[in-house]
C-alpha cells in the first residue's frame, strides 16, 4: 500500500481526516489554553503579592508558578496551626 492509498482511506478521506483533525485541534486547544491560564493565574497572584510586600515581581514566569504554590502551602501551614491540626 502506498502513502497515497493510505491517505485516501479507501475513498473516505473526507470523513476520516476531518474527524481526527477536529479531535487533535480540540486536544491542542485545551492543552495550550489550560497551560496558559495556569501561568497567567500564577503570574497575576505573584504580582499582587509582590506589590503587597513591596517587592519587585520576578521576570521569570516559571518561578511565579512555584512561588504562588509556596504561598498556598504556607497559607495552609498557617491555617493548620490555627486549627491545631
Amino acid at each position: 500500500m502506498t502513502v497515497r492509498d493510505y491517505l485516501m482511506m479507501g475513498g473516505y478521506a473526507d470523513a476520516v481526516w476531518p474527524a481526527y483533525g477536529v479531535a487533535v485541534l480540540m486536544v491542542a486547544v485545551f492543552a495550550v489554553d489550560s497551560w496558559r491560564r495556569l501561568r497567567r493565574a500564577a503570574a497575576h497572584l505573584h504580582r499582587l503579592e509582590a506589590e503587597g510586600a513591596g517587592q519587585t515581581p520576578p521576570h521569570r514566569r516559571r518561578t511565579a508558578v512555584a512561588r504562588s504554590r509556596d504561598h498556598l502551602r504556607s497559607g495552609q501551614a498557617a491555617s493548620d496551626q490555627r486549627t491545631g491540626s
Partner: protein
Amino acid sequence: MHRFANPGRFLRMADRLQPWLITTTILAFLAGLYLALWQSPADYQQGETVRIMYIHVPAAWLAMFAYCLIAVASASALIWRHPLAHVAAEAASPVGAGFTLIALVSGSLWGRPMWGVYWVWDARLTSFLLLFFLYLGHMALIQAFDDRQRGQRTAAILALVGAINLPVIKFSVDWWNTLHQPASILRSGGPSIDSSMLSPLFSMAIAFQLFFFVVLLARMKAVLLEARSQSLLFNRLRMQAASTGGKRAN
C-alpha cells in the same frame, strides 16, 4: 475524599501527579493513534470510516463521564460544601463541552457516508446535543453573577437537574427506534466488536481519560490561584476603603 478537600494539600498532590500523568497521556495517545490509524483493519461494511469510531466513542464516553463528575461535584458542593467541588465542576465544564463537540462532529462526519445524512433528530443525537447545551448553560451560569459563589451554586443546580439527561442518552437507543446503533460494548452478553477493533478503542479511551485528568488538574490549579488573587484584591480594596473612611471621619 476529604483528605484532598484542602486546597494546599490538593496542589501538592497535583504537582506530584502531573509529570507522571502527562507522560502516560502522551504514551497512551501514541499507542492509541498507532492502533487506530495503522494497526486495526477496515470494517467489512463500514470500510475505513470505522476509524472514526476510535475517537467518536471515547469522546462520547468522556463527555458523559465529565458530566457525571460535574453532577457529583455539584452535589457535594451543595450538600457537604466540599471546598474543591465547585472548583472541579468549573474546571471540568469547558473540557466536557469540547469532547461533546468532538463526538457530535465526528459522528456527523461518519453519518454522511454511512447514513447519507450529517444529522437526524433521533433520540441519541438529540439527547447528546442537549448535553452540549447543558455544558454551555453550566459555563454561562458560573459567570452570570457578580457574586461568584451565587453563580457556582446556580450552575450546580443546573448540573444536577441536567443529570437526568445521562440515562436518557445511554438508554435512548433501547427506549426508542433510533438510526444510531445500539450499545455494542457495555451490553449484556459482552462486547459484539472484534478484539482487533476493541484494542484501539480502549487505548484511545484511556488516552482521552488521562488527558482529561491532566487538563482538569491544571485548570483546577488555575481556578484556585485566581480565587486567591481575587481575595487578595478584595482585602486590599477593603483596607483602602477603611483607611479613606477613617481619614474622612477625622
